[in-house]
């Protein structure tokens, strides 16, 4: 809880970044904007979305590589590390020159990394589009950094890792993924295992291999939204990205064996905190046409959201937890659907855990109320539409789904699936996925 900013109920819908399940009327899909798409000969896909946003452009370079792609032991954390290295420049535009040019443009430039994606984004004035494209295409094709610079940046990344240790949620999540997965690379979190992050300065040569494999046109999608003309965007893309050589080498990600029994672990946070519990269930890989996957996505909010029975009981009436929430959003490979709860009394941890299972059993035995399902669909529709207010927000909301699927059309397909989900589908999903043998339970306590 962050007391300073907002107390209240500003954002009721947090499920999968506000994507909506109900179609906007008239055009056959939820997404209200026209878009155009081109694929260059080298495989680079460019999606252009003109939008009434005078003078503004959001430019997202979506690299379909995240910590998921770090399959070699001892080399976790490199996707995120590259997020840092990409700001170190090229021979044509060395880091300080790149920084100066971006500064002159007054661009809001940043990047983020998750399990499935590394995303570089800039927001800037429309007149700077060509310069941005020149700079971005240059660093994606010609990134160049010395070993010394590499090692210095590794220090900054280790600092980021240490910063994360001061949050009990980071500690909990790291333990959850490590316990739930045996083989698949979701076993480690995006920042990487601590010992790997610490050892990064010794891996200069490997870093070049990583870049060479994954920073290739077939693995990148440009998403450009705002005050743009698609024809001009494609012509510039051809000019600046056309020479980028193919060469993507897919990662050899081990398949996770089926989980056949519950897993449990405890972890201690080196500080004071109320106990926090995470209950994670193995889910399905992202497939926009999968009704079971769509049903799982909806089930999280129906069972644990702010209008659920368990929320009313544990948060409002009995006040046994500070919060309970669910993140059942999909991932590119089968990931985890997780319920989090912060428990007020350490003696009540097992009691709260039982309440979580009871809430699931209730949905397994009885179909969810149709009105609640419809309210959720309405919630998602309005959450989605209200979130499309700036080019940056439009691009930000699309980036994840494009990263998982490689195709903006997956958005409409997913929402068509979500729209079709029935109470029976929710019940089936709960019976199939929210079961003891597929779950991992982590309990974090403070010192």
């Amino acid at each position, binding site marked *: 809880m962050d007391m300073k900013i907002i107390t209240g109920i*500003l954002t009721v819908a947090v499920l999968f970044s506000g994507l909506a399940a109900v179609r906007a009327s*008239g055009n056959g899909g939820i997404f209200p904007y026209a878009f155009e798409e081109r694929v260059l000969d080298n495989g680079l896909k460019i999606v252009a979305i003109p939008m009434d946003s005078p003078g503004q452009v959001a430019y997202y370079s979506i690299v379909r590589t995240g910590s998921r792609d770090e399959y070699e032991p001892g080399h976790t954390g490199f996707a995120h590390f590259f997020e840092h290295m990409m700001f170190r420049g090229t021979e044509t535009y060395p880091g300080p020159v790149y920084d100066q040019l971006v500064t002159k443009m007054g661009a809001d430039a940043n990047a983020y990394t998750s399990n499935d994606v590394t995303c570089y984004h800039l927001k800037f004035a429309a007149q700077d589009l060509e310069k941005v494209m020149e700079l971005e295409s240059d660093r994606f094709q010609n990134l160049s950094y010395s070993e010394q610079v590499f090692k210095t940046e590794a220090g900054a990344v280790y600092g980021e890792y240490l*910063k994360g240790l*001061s949050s009990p949620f980071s500690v909990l999540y790291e333990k959850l993924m490590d316990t739930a997965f045996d083989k698949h690379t979701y076993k480690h979190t995006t920042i990487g295992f601590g010992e790997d992050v610490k050892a990064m300065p010794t891996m200069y040569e490997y870093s070049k291999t990583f870049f060479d494999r994954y920073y290739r046109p077939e693995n990148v999608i440009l998403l450009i939204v705002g005050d743009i003309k698609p024809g001009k965007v494609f012509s510039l893309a051809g000019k600046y990205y056309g020479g980028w050589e193919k060469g993507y080498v897919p990662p050899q990600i081990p398949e996770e064996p089926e989980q056949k029994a519950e897993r449990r672990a405890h972890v201690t946070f080196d500080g004071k905190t109320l106990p926090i519990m995470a209950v994670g269930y193995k889910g399905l890989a992202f497939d926009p046409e999968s009704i079971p996957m769509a049903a799982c996505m909806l089930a999280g909010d129906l069972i644990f959201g702010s209008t659920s029975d368990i929320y009313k009981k544990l948060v409002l009436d009995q006040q046994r937890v500070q919060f309970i929430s669910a993140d059942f959003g999909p991932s590119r490979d089968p990931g985890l659907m997780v319920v989090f709860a912060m428990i007020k009394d350490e003696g009540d941890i097992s009691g709260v855990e039982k309440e979580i299972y009871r809430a699931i059993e209730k949905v397994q035995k009885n179909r969810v109320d149709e009105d609640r399902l419809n309210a959720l669909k309405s*919630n998602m529709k*309005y959450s989605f539409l209200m979130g499309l207010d700036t080019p940056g927000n439009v691009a930000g909301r699309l980036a994840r789904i494009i990263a998982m699927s490689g195709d903006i059309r997956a958005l409409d397909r997913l929402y068509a699936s979500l729209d079709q989900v029935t109470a029976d589908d929710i019940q089936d999903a709960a019976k199939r996925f929210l079961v003891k043998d597929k779950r991992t339970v982590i309990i974090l306590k403070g010192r």
Partner: protein
Amino acid sequence: MKGIATMVVMIAVLILGSLVMVSCDSENGIQTITLPVDSDPTVAFRIWFKVGSQNDPQGKEGLAALTAALMTDGSTENRRYSEILEALYPMAAGYGASVDKEMTVITGRVHKDHLDTYLDLLTDAILHPAFLEEDFNRIKTNTLNFLEKTMRYSNDEMFGKETFYRMIFQGTPYGHPEAGLIESVRSITLDHVKQFYQTYFTRDNVITGVGGGYEKPLIQDLKNRLSALPPKVVPPVPPPDIRPLEGQHVTLVQKNTCSTAISFGFPIDVKRGDRDFYALWLANSWLGEHRNSSSHLYQVIRETRGLNYGDYSYIEVFPNGWARQFPPVNVARRRQIFEVWIRPVPNEAAHFSLRAAVREIQKLIDNGMSPEDFELTREFLKKYILHYAPTTSTRLGYKMDDHFYGIKDHLKTMEKTLDKLTLEEVNEAIRRHLQTENMAIVMITDNARKLSRALVNNTPSPLEYSTPKPPEVLEEDKEIAVYPLNIRAGNVTIIPADEMFLK
């Protein structure tokens, strides 16, 4: 290719002074600031009560925040809280309260489709909070957990900043976190909350803000509804009378941690609308633009030396910097501070990092900005401010802050002033307002006693890099490692984390 958009989207013009109408009137006794944006399919509300944590009675610190939270996170006389959640849910709408030192703003946003229903809920929360014991217990417990555990043990950066603000403002109405102090919050009863509500949530103490695609009658409707608040003029709180800092004062908060979070700075007599504000804003952008690699401190500490994740400076309060990219709205204050935020560095690099940052500020004072840096920063800011207020709600927030500061249009003034500023003017403002002799310094660290001795004795603090560095960096490091701070033994306080924010 998809069909044409069916949903009209909200306009996203950034600086829209010429296209939007801002009105402020006091008809019905209630002042209103409006920002109509016809193409926006949503309506944004900012209901500002002129009350904040500065109004917390002594011994009841946290009362303003608890009261506001009970209004927006609790039941009303007409609806249980669970019913409110259910009613808001299909609209994907909500409202909440932001409490700062001087302002309490109830914010919300809804799609036009649901405006009537939403307005009922929003005004019900403001006019008829039920103040139920069960809601009070829930929110008070959450607040105590935040103060006792989250702030002290889950976010050293927030902990450091709050400790720093407390050092600067102790003994004044600004001197405690908005969430309160632990013993004070424990002592607050529901009666205190009810009394606070009656005192401050009055018709004469509210300014309403509405923006977006609403129809004109909405404004009168809202004013009519809020006119049910009791009339009562609230006496203003005098601005905080800050005890001047003499020398460099250090608070070392002892806790088990592998990295040290650092915040330091001093009060400044500059605020929006002042001539020097805009000059200092430009200088500060060069020195430490928030979460931007253009920040000079970032370049020195992170980029060149890899010591941490970022290093920034501020001339206005910037709460929750780790969670936001651009300045917040509705945290307007009559007293501001110059603040440096050094994100956690390894404990062994803490002394060095502090020296490096203080040295850079002193260099800026001594040498001023170079013509090249001045021009680059001016060019940067001309476009960068376009990102400050991308949405209707944020622009509405700026308009309300303009009202607080008694200025016309801050965003536009910033834009216009950039063209007029000269390097001389900026360098004069730096010399007038920045200094390094009198500062408050906070470090959340592991071995406070050892660090204290090193600080007081000006013990050299050379860094040992695990990786090679260019010769020019190593040369500069030699200067930084012995850069003299002026910290007297009597000016260092060591306090265990557990003892912070108790009372």
